[in-house]
């Protein structure tokens, strides 16, 4: 396996306000692989924003090691730091486009900062970027004349101007309506594949993680409490903070769910199906074979980065329980006993 592109080793970050020190991040150890979409989720104040800004050193870690692409980032001098930042694009929740510059000028800005001043080279690259992100007709507009989705497309085009290896996304869809959110997330997926770009994204919405990320880290109170493939973390959350975020995104009320479970007799199981198995006829045949009856307490079918999954909570009544469980296992269903 190739070495990780970005490596954070026992990183801590504290802010000083007056005499008191406020810890924002503690003991963070993460490895981000080249080409993956890595999500960081957590409630507000969990330290997501600080974590993201460590990667382009807008925030300096108080302690710990920060390596990327064989560079020791904390040891960079100012010129080296500027060079590194040109390899790391960044997009923002509120877009942060310069209001005094047109769309084309905004997109050209990182190129100018990088010292590309010669007309043809600059113009060619800007034209190419505007065309790729459907902005050609908006080239001479000012940001104030654009919709939120258009602004974020300009933000993405600008972030990719210098052909970076890494794209940092700071709550990229939190200021957008659901439909535009979908479009922007699809675009992030597309550029991830198209340019082999590594994306690090922070969000407080599990749905965003579900739609674009390959792996996810859960932050809570400045600590990384869980990290793994999105399907793993979402379908089998281990830490209470993760469970809370998952339930929240499924619009499930934990106490009400508890009441529902308490009302039904018999043992309760949660079945998780992934991929094509999601569509297989399953319950009827297993029930018949094992002679058990079942009642569905809750259920959900959704997709993680395009791959379908289903999760069912069942109460199984009567019959041969062990046969039923064996049958489920045989069909690749993950079964978890809740009660």
């Amino acid at each position, binding site marked *: 396996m190739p070495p990780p592109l970005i490596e954070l080793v026992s990183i801590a970050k504290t802010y000083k306000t007056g005499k008191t020190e406020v810890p924002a991040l503690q003991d963070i150890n993460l490895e981000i692989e080249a080409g993956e979409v890595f999500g960081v989720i957590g409630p507000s104040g969990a330290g997501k924003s600080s974590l993201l800004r460590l990667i*382009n050193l*807008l925030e300096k870690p108080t302690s710990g090691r920060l390596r990327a692409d064989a560079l020791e980032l904390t040891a960079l001098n100012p010129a080296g730091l*500027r*060079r*590194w*930042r*040109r390899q*790391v*694009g*960044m997009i*923002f929740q*509120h877009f*942060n486009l*310069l*209001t*005094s*510059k047109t769309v084309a000028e905004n997109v050209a*800005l*990182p190129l*100018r*900062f*990088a010292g590309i001043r010669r007309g043809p080279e600059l113009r060619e690259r800007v034209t190419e970027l505007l065309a790729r992100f459907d902005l050609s007709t908006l080239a001479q507009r*000012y*940001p*104030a004349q654009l919709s939120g989705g258009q602004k974020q497309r300009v933000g993405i085009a*600008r972030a990719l101007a*210098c052909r970076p290896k890494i794209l*940092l996304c700071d709550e990229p869809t939190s200021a957008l309506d659901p439909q535009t959110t979908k479009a922007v997330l699809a675009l992030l997926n597309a550029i991830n594949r198209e340019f082999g770009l590594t994306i690090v994204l922070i969000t407080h919405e599990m749905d965003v993680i579900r739609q674009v990320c390959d792996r996810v880290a859960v932050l809570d109170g400045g600590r990384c409490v869980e990290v793994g493939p999105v399907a793993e973390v979402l379908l089998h959350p281990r830490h209470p903070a993760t469970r809370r975020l998952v339930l929240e995104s499924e619009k499930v009320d934990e106490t009400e769910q508890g009441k529902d479970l308490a009302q039904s007799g018999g043992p309760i199981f949660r079945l998780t199906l992934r991929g094509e198995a999601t569509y297989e006829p399953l319950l009827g045949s297993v029930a018949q074979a094992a002679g058990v009856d079942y009642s569905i307490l809750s259920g959900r079918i959704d997709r993680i980065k395009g791959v379908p999954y289903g999760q069912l909570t069942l109460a199984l009544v009567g019959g041969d329980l062990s046969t039923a469980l064996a049958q489920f296992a045989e069909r690749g269903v993950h079964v978890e006993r809740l009660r």
Partner: protein
Amino acid sequence: MALWFRDIDWGQIAQATLETLQMLSGSLVFVVVLGLPLGIVLFLTGNGQRWAQPGVYRGLSLLVNVIRSMPFVILLILLIPVTVAITGTSLGVVGAIPPLVIAAAPFFARLVETALREVEPGLIEAALAMGASDAQLIMAVLLPEARRGLIAAVTVTSIALVSDAAMSGAIGGGGLGDLAIRYGYQRFQTNVMVVTVLLLLALVQTLQFIGDRLVVHFSRK
């Protein structure tokens, strides 16, 4: 009415108006050249900014406040030796410019600092994330984004300069203020006083009008 204005020397009024305009434009150039960098340094050394340096910021801030709290008439007299050292004279248009610049540059710098603080911090962050150097940050982001505030700052400063320039007439600075004091006050020629005041009013109105139009022209919001 015509009788009342009979003894006014219009040639002299025209000469004085021209002198006032020279004092205004001459000092404004130096005020911007000195005050803009000072304002940028004030902003950047301020709390939480790029070059945050509490000591430097407090020192500059104190200097600015000391000069700004000094009545201009007093400053004029205090600065006479400095003015003579720079220009060789403390009289006339040339002699008026150094004290005008020294009085107005800190005022302008403070307005520049305030205008720069209005720039969205996210834009500064975005520029740094793009790998901007400090010079690029200032030239490509801070100044263009604060353009409207900066134009308003120039407008307000130039109006303050008109008033200060008139005051410099008190110690022989020339211009409309000089005329108003010598003829209007010391020789009791109220009509000369009225004409100079009307001219000053017209000048201030014109400056404000131009400033407002420029602000509107550069609005992108």
